[in-house]
């Protein structure tokens, strides 16, 4: 298969400018600078490219909302905050091919008329940060960034801005506040960022993977891109797969690829002795799929939606038969309650209550009424708040309860977690030596 995002992943020093240039990198900027900005937007619209950060919004359409000749500046923000549990694909792009992101960013900036851009990168990321900083320097030296790019009238400065450990800053308006030096609290929309975003100016926020697809689209044309994938879900997508599969890692696949086949062929199937119970296909915020649904679903926006889930960020978490679903949901509830920014009471209170209830259910101290309560609280959380972090817990709760209710009921009737019986009886976890641990030490990644 032709790869769009990862063709250089296996080349030595793929993160350096000479390697990127040798494989044709930055050549397309000459073509870009001869196009009109509205032609670029039109091309991206025709390609069918949709945002890869989670929401799947049409990229060209989003750009077209930016006013053509506003009085002040316009901005591009690159979302490299990657914090959705199960997702580690942007990290791979930043570490292995930072120049592709920079070239894509120049293309977006040119199309929307931005003179300044910020790469909002997760504060925990060290190697990815060093790689992108080094790549920016290289690009400036060669005139791919800065004043009068390649001798054209177009100038664009691109800077990094490090996050400081808050998942919510991946939400686009929280990200804007964070770049402005404020607490990362999401803003009420409208106004949408395309009209009033960073420092009150028209702004486009795009995910790392979205922008990294642009060099291909501009070079080969929208039709070439749209010919990959399905008619509605065009192009390729990165999936980061984790859990007990033989080859966890980041893989690029054409959209529409059958999930079961992906797990077997790309991820190497499950580890010896492991049985598939469930898959969270698109990062921790999306509804879970049962092993049966895994057989039926394809990896594209429509098929996943038909099966009640979402493509999301492509962070795929494989859950084996022996891992407790109540505990899995408890871990997610802890995450969302910890990461809620606290502005909206349905989210702040709802996430905290759900965590509390799941904690007692997991310990075997829950009641059948707790299960109804979980659904009631979730219903009150979805669609009621400033951002969708609240829905991001409500959706998994409802899907776990709909599809794995038996495990919740089992905890209630037994009075303990059947998966953790040993924890309970000994009163303390047992320390396993590495050959007893769950994973194979030799597995290959990335």
């Amino acid at each position, binding site marked *: 298969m032709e790869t769009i995002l990862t063709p250089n992943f296996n080349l030595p020093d793929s993160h350096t400018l000479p390697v990127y240039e040798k494989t044709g990198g930055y050549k397309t900027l000459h073509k870009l600078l001869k196009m009109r900005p509205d032609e670029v937007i039109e091309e991206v619209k025709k390609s069918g490219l949709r945002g890869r950060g989670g929401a799947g919004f049409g990229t060209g359409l989003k750009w077209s909302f930016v006013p053509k000749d506003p009085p002040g500046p316009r901005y591009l923000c690159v979302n490299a905050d990657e914090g959705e549990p199960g997702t580690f694909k942007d990290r791979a792009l930043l570490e292995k091919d930072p120049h592709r992101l920079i070239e894509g960013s120049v293309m977006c900036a040119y199309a929307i008329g931005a003179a300044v851009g910020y790469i909002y990168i997760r504060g925990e990321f060290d190697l990815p940060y060093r790689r992108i900083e080094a790549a920016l320097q290289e690009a400036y030296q060669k005139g791919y960034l800065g004043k009068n790019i390649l001798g054209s009238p177009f100038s664009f400065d691109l800077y990094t801005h490090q996050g400081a450990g808050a998942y919510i800053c991946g939400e686009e308006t929280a990200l804007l506040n964070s770049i*402005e030096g404020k607490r990362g609290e999401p803003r009420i929309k409208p106004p949408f960022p395309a009209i009033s975003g960073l420092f009150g100016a028209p702004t486009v926020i795009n995910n790392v993977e979205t922008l990294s697809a642009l060099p291909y689209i501009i070079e080969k044309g929208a039709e070439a891109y749209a010919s990959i994938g399905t008619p509605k879900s065009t192009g390729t997508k990165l999936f980061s797969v984790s859990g007990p599969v033989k080859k966890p890692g980041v893989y690029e696949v054409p959209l529409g690829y059958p999930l079961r086949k992906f797990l077997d062929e790309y991820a190497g199937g499950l580890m010896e002795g492991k049985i598939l119970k469930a898959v969270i296909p698109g990062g921790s915020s999306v509804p879970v799929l049962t092993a049966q649904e895994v057989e039926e679903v394809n990896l594209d926006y429509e098929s996943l939606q038909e099966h009640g889930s979402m493509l999301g960020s492509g962070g795929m978490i494989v859950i084996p038969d022996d891992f407790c679903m109540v505990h899995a949901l408890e871990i997610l509830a802890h995450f969302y309650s910890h990461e809620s920014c606290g502005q909206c009471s349905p989210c702040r209170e709802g996430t905290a209550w759900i965590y509390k209830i799941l904690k007692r259910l997991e310990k075997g101290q829950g009641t059948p009424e707790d299960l109804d309560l979980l659904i009631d609280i979730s219903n009150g959380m979805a669609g009621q708040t400033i951002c969708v972090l609240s829905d991001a817990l409500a959706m998994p709760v409802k899907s776990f309860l709909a599809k794995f209710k038996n495990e919740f009921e089992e905890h209630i009737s037994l009075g303990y977690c059947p998966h953790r019986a040993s924890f309970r009886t000994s009163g303390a976890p047992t320390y396993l030596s590495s050959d007893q641990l769950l994973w194979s030490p030799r597995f290959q990644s990335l």
Partner: protein
Amino acid sequence: MILKFSKNSKTKIDEILERYPNKQAATLPVLFIAQREFGHLSREAMEAVAKILETSYAHVYGVATFYTLYNKKPVGKYHVQICGNLSCSIMGGENIQEYLKKKLKLNFGETTQDGKFTLSSVECLASCGTGPAMQINEAYYEKLTPEKVDEILNSLK
């Protein structure tokens, strides 16, 4: 006590200020510089940040307390941050969490007497495919086993 940024840090801050249309926007990067220079973000350190950015202490305090990577209290020389999220847990991360607690004789959020280690449980580090994962200061350590944890901790002087 009034804290002052070193010449080096001041040069860095001037460089950073050029990236933004106003000084307040540099709050996050300057807080990182302050943390590196002063060890943790004491009231005095945050006041120094407010002064240099011509903003209020209240603003700086509000920002510093929002984000987890800013240490409002001193942390050990090595900050051991183990992921407690789902993919790592599926791969046995909770065993590593318990192993670390036992080995360092610490609960999460505590620091050893000698100030060498602080232990924290953190959210997903985007190392899910190579979990269990932890971060010590800037460095990531992945595919952890108890033996590997021993080796890593012993190598930290």
